[in-house]
């Protein structure tokens, strides 16, 4: 696909990187020569210096043949204008990033009047993601597949869990209901577990299954879902505002600690029934004063990764059941997970992931078969959903007889609205939805799981 990305900031660059690796034709527009130069040297794409809302610049990019225009500069207004002009000049699909809370209730109107095909709001997406984490406290990450019938849940193995030090094939016999262990991260390595795999303490595990089975699996582990009632948010950023809105609808009490006094007043204006505290969230005195140890969850959302990390470590030490933190820089992820903090949110990645999902959906109508795709465990492994077509050597053959690539796992098969967590005797039929876990690199079609 031909894609134009306006704005080479954090989100723009991440998108360009992911999309160019998936063989799309990318043109990147920005007015900063330095970031463009970096992009030009590290990625396979074309860079144009200039204002992305200028007709002349856009015309230079063959915009009339462009499939997708992504406007992700730091200015909401520029992004919107850019999409409006792009659409008039012939771009087929336009996406604008709009993040100001003032516009957040007007998305529908904006979309209709400005003919934007999609409006993305990273802060809103991040807030939704955090809310989901709070709803499922025992899991660090939850993804759904196959029309929300299959859930894939990430959790960390504790030393009290009864799944430690037992071979996977033995374990499968002991479990109350069938679930599938898809991927495991241990010491910076990612494994697709096979029959003789043993879980260790602190492994990060992805498990897939029906929602009910997953819940019973966690019960078996002795982790009872506990409904969160009090949440403390450190840092009154935009995400905090969106998150408060979502949580209040779930009847959860929210307390926000914010350092900047003016911001506190502003928050007080926008938010109702919320306790706003003016104070430094990294200061233990302030935290103890607010008795954060009694909170069901603490969410660190300040603009500085380091502050979020310190606060979260302290909260973790206090024994708060759920600690969530926002981290902008990707290279911190492995260090932080090592410290025992698993619930990390990165707005940049959530945005990038959402757009990638859109691109794949658009691509799908052009013949590429992936329907849904997630990167997990710091992009080391991939979960993809396909609808099976008739493929020789693949369909109607028992899974144990398939010649599959190493490190590829069929996690679930959906047939007639029923979930099959497959074993060697199952087989893939035409029109099945198939969910595949792989660490063997990007796959774009189901037949790529077979050895060449």
């Amino acid at each position, binding site marked *: 696909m031909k894609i134009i990305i306006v704005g080479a900031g954090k989100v723009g660059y991440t998108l360009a990187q992911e999309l*160019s690796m998936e063989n799309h*034709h990318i043109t990147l527009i920005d007015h900063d020569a330095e970031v463009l130069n970096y992009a030009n*040297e590290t*990625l396979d*794409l*074309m860079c144009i210096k200039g204002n992305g809302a200028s007709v002349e610049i856009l015309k230079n990019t063959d915009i009339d043949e462009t499939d997708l225009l992504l406007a992700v500069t730091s200015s909401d207004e520029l992004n919107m204008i850019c999409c409006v002009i792009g659409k008039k000049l012939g771009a087929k699909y336009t996406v604008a990033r709009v993040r100001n809370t003032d516009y957040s209730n007007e998305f529908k109107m904006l979309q209709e009047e400005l003919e934007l095909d999609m409006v993305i709001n990273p802060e809103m997406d991040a807030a939704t993601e955090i809310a989901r984490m709070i709803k499922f406290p025992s899991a660090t990450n939850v993804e759904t597949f196959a029309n929300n019938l299959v859930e894939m849940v990430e959790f960390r193995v504790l030393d009290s869990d009864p799944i430690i030090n037992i071979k996977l094939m033995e374990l499968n016999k002991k479990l109350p209901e069938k679930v599938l262990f898809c991927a495991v991260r241990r010491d910076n390595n990612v494994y697709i577990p096979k029959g003789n795999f043993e879980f260790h303490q602190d492994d990060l595990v992805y498990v897939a299954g029906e929602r009910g089975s997953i819940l019973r699996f966690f019960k078996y582990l002795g982790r009872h879902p506990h409904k969160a009632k009090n949440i403390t948010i450190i840092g009154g950023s935009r995400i905090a505002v969106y998150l408060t809105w979502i949580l209040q609808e779930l009847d959860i009490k929210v307390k926000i600690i914010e350092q900047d006094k003016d911001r506190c007043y502003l928050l007080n204006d926008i938010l109702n029934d919320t306790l706003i505290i003016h104070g430094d969230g990294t200061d233990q005195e302030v935290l103890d004063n607010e008795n954060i140890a009694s909170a069901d969850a603490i969410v660190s959302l300040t603009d500085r990764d380091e502050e979020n990390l310190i606060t979260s470590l302290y909260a973790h030490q206090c024994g708060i059941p759920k600690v969530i933190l926002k981290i902008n820089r990707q290279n911190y992820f492995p260090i932080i997970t090592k410290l025992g903090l698993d619930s990390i949110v990165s707005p940049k990645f959530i945005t990038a992931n959402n757009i990638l999902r859109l691109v794949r959906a658009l691509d799908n109508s052009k013949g590429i078969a992936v329907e849904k795709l997630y990167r997990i465990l710091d992009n080391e492994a991939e979960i993809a959903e396909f609808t099976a077509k008739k493929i020789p050597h693949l369909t109607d053959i028992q899974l144990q007889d398939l010649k599959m690539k190493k490190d590829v796992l069929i996690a679930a098969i959906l047939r007639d609205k029923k979930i099959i967590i497959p074993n060697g005797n199952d087989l893939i039929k035409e029109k099945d939805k198939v969910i595949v876990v792989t660490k063997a690199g990007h796959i774009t079609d189901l037949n790529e799981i077979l050895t060449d």
Partner: protein
Amino acid sequence: MNLKIVLKIIGTVLFWESVLMTPSFIIAVIDNSFDRNAFLIAIGITATIGLILKNIKAKEYTLRKREAFASVALCWLVISLFGALPYYISGITNSYIDALFETASGFTTTGATIFSNVESLPPSMLFWRSFTLWIGGMGVLVFTMALAPSLGARSIFLMEAEHAGLSPGRLVPKLSDTAKILYAIYSTMTLITIIIFVIGGMPFFDAVIHAFGTAGTGGFSMKTYSIGHYNSVFLEWATVVFMFMFGINFSLYYIILKKDIKTVLRNEELRFYGGLVIASTVLIFINILPLYNYSLGDSLRNAAFQVTSVTTTTGFSITDLNMWPMFSKSLLLLLMFTGACTGSTTGGMKLIRIIILFKSVLKEIKQTIHPGSISKIKIDHKTIDNDGERSVLIFFFSYIFILFVTLVILSLENFDFMTTFSAALSSLSNIGLGYGLIGPMGNFSEFSHLSKITMTMAMIIGRLEILPVIALLSPSMWHKQ
């Protein structure tokens, strides 16, 4: 430097070189020529070593600038070393050094030859000679990039190192597509050249050989008197036009294809190129009038032919330049420095650098008169930043310095000054034509092995525009990380 990835790239390029040898092998088989086995052995050796290197497993695949520069420089050395095999194995050259010189001269589009009697060479050899020149014109790595895009996301560095002239632009987002477009334009234009030559009365095979010589702006011929052999005014004028066209930046042709003629006509370098060729032609035309008995047609044709031939660094000639007056000879010598447009198949300094140098002189004068004035050099309304200006100045110095080092080594031969100087300049600027012993009727066979190796190096340094090759000499380039 990550040597494994460098070797991997060299392997890929070597593999493609063996593929490129096959047409010559097929010609040898059809012709039942004695050098059939030479090609077969050369293809076998090149392909085997290429495949071995290609399958090296590297831990890290990131291609940094240093690996890219080293790969390009080493690739050009290695393809010359292996490309020399057919000449050497078949025994048509006296020594391996001669074979190496001839191959490097081909790939770098110099077109200097050590064969004193080209007309006796078998067709397969003539084809291989001209084919190296055609491939070398647009670039061996660009060729590989067009066919095997697996050289990595950062292969822009490879293109940068191999590309003739300043900052290569991407024509389309994907680098491998850009390479494909460049080769498509190049091939189409070559095909048109062949057709016009055939219409002009050249036999088909001769037309192919001379079209390769024109397109690569290298100037290998199969006749002692090159284009002059056919004694056709039409062919000579056609060659002038095509040489000129292959001296134009290829991305301009892409812009023409996109129907944006205005941008092309406004291109400063193209205007300068046209002006330079016309002005030099007129001056030489006046200067050589007496030599051709005041025949306007002959003088104009000869003047235009030699000017385009030298400016585009092709090196064809239809007359004995040694007979020309000193003014014309000096003017041609000056044109040997400049070369033609950036992004074309020509050698030399490239006109864009000359324009930037002139503009920096003007800027300096302006700043002396108005000390507080702020001015930056602009080309096509785009500002050239200080880094760009500095790199041109450094390039200019390095070019002159290497020219004189080459000159000093070549003077050990104790030939006359015109021969020695034009030989040095001719190799560095990839022209292949000079005065004295290496004039249109001469060749490079008289030189010693030391001189041939020096000129081989000068040709490769000149083709890759100095930095990639010189960087290899830096010890820190070879450090592990």
